[in-house]
């Protein structure tokens, strides 16, 4: 399958980050659906199965990203999820998917800090989608 066969859901309440991410993904060849809030993303998930989802962690709720991961994995267990955030680990709240206990309650496949290069994001997506 080629990249244009995949539709990626991107949810972020930062309009610039949302725009840039969607821009980069479309440039790389993917189809995209953009959501500007947790609520919008939930509405998308309710009626549409994306090939992959990228969620921001903090939107209208501090844990919006976690909730979206949970919701999407409940409805579509096979859809890979990337959780992205600008919260850095040196501040004390750190999440990684390295330990079993964290992996069991953070239902994301990959955890990325924001500011990643578009090629790097593309690389992660290709791995998850096995392109």
């Amino acid at each position, binding site marked *: 399958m080629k990249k244009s066969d995949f539709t990626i859901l991107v949810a972020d309440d930062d309009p*610039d*980050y949302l725009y840039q991410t969607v821009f980069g993904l479309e440039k790389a060849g993917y189809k995209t659906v953009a959501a500007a809030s947790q609520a919008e993303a939930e509405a998308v998930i309710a009626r549409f199965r994306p090939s992959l989802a990228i969620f921001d962690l903090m939107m209208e709720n501090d844990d919006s990203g976690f909730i979206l991961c949970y919701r999407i994995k409940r409805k579509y267990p096979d859809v890979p999820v990337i959780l992205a955030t600008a919260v850095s680990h040196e501040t004390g709240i750190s999440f990684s998917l390295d330990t079993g206990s964290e992996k069991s309650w953070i239902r994301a496949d990959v955890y990325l800090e*924001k500011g990643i290069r578009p090629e790097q994001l593309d690389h992660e997506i290709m791995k998850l989608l096995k392109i």
Partner: protein
Amino acid sequence: MAVLKLLVIDDEPGIRSGVFRILNNFNVNYPFMDEDYTFDVTEAATGEEGIRILERDMPDIVLLDNKLPGIQGVDVLEFIRNRKYEIVVAMITSYASLDVALKAHRFGATDFIPKPFTPQELKSSIENITKQLYLRRITHRMNQEGKKIRYQFLSVLSHELKAPLNAVEGYLKMMQEKESGDSINDYATAIERSLQRISGMRNLIMDLLDFTKIRLERKDEKIEEVHLKEIAAGAIITVQPYAIQMEVNIKLTVKSDAVIMADPTDMEIIFNNLVSNSVKYNKRGGKAEIIIDSNENDVIVYFTDTGIGITESDKENLFNEFVRIKNEKTKNISGSGLGLSIVKKVIELYNGTITVDSLPEAGTTFTVRLPGKQTNNT
């Protein structure tokens, strides 16, 4: 599958068997719970029996009737509290008088299930309690692992500071790679957005500087006589360009001239923030007014506007750090979420208070009281 131990203490056998039947096949699942929770129900007909079972089984949840034959429900509650048992208690009672409710609440009951209840009412209460229990345990575990949530301020700050940097960096990279075309005109939006984000970040940094100023021990305080009407006039001048743009008319009313002993910089922080909010969250063509008044004890300043207002539920967190009311009307207004928390801290330095009255769509009034009015006898 995790099992929570639940003890129901009630002298009515019908209630006990009802709870047993309803919760026997019930399970609770919320986001992040790695497994479903089910319930193992034990019964006690009296408070005395309940306490015996409590000590033996250490249940997670107790459903407690208040009106019991021997010792009363609130006595059981007090027992649990004195022993510092980590048990969530919900009162089930048909005698939910205000008195009992207050006492129960004071002794740490987390929930009230009025009798008679439907299976659904019981289930949703239990669902809530289970969520609380789960969150409490997660927090506990995180504390044990040294992941203290007291760093929340820093983490939110780091988020707020990094977000605009990421946005600007992203746009610059797009330009560097010429991703939207070869002409500078292809990047007009990117440039415009970058400038907006930088200006937002500047505001945040300015507020942060104010914030650290008041957080630090201040030895260089310059306490002097401050005429609040002068501070008010200064704040109006500062915000005037923005007010003209927004077509908001600002009025100053001095009912009684107020002079207080204070650091003028502190008073400027209070007035500048509140006056700028009354313009920022106003409607085009709206009004803002500062009213300075005083009585024998306090100086009272009202900051009134005819703006978009604040809903009752948003008022609760209004003065917390990094709280910004997010809705359709505020999404294009930039702010750091620090202004009001700074204002509150400064006012508290002077043992004053700030309160808010608001009606959505009609307007908001902030009332600032500063004690220790100094008249002209100094």
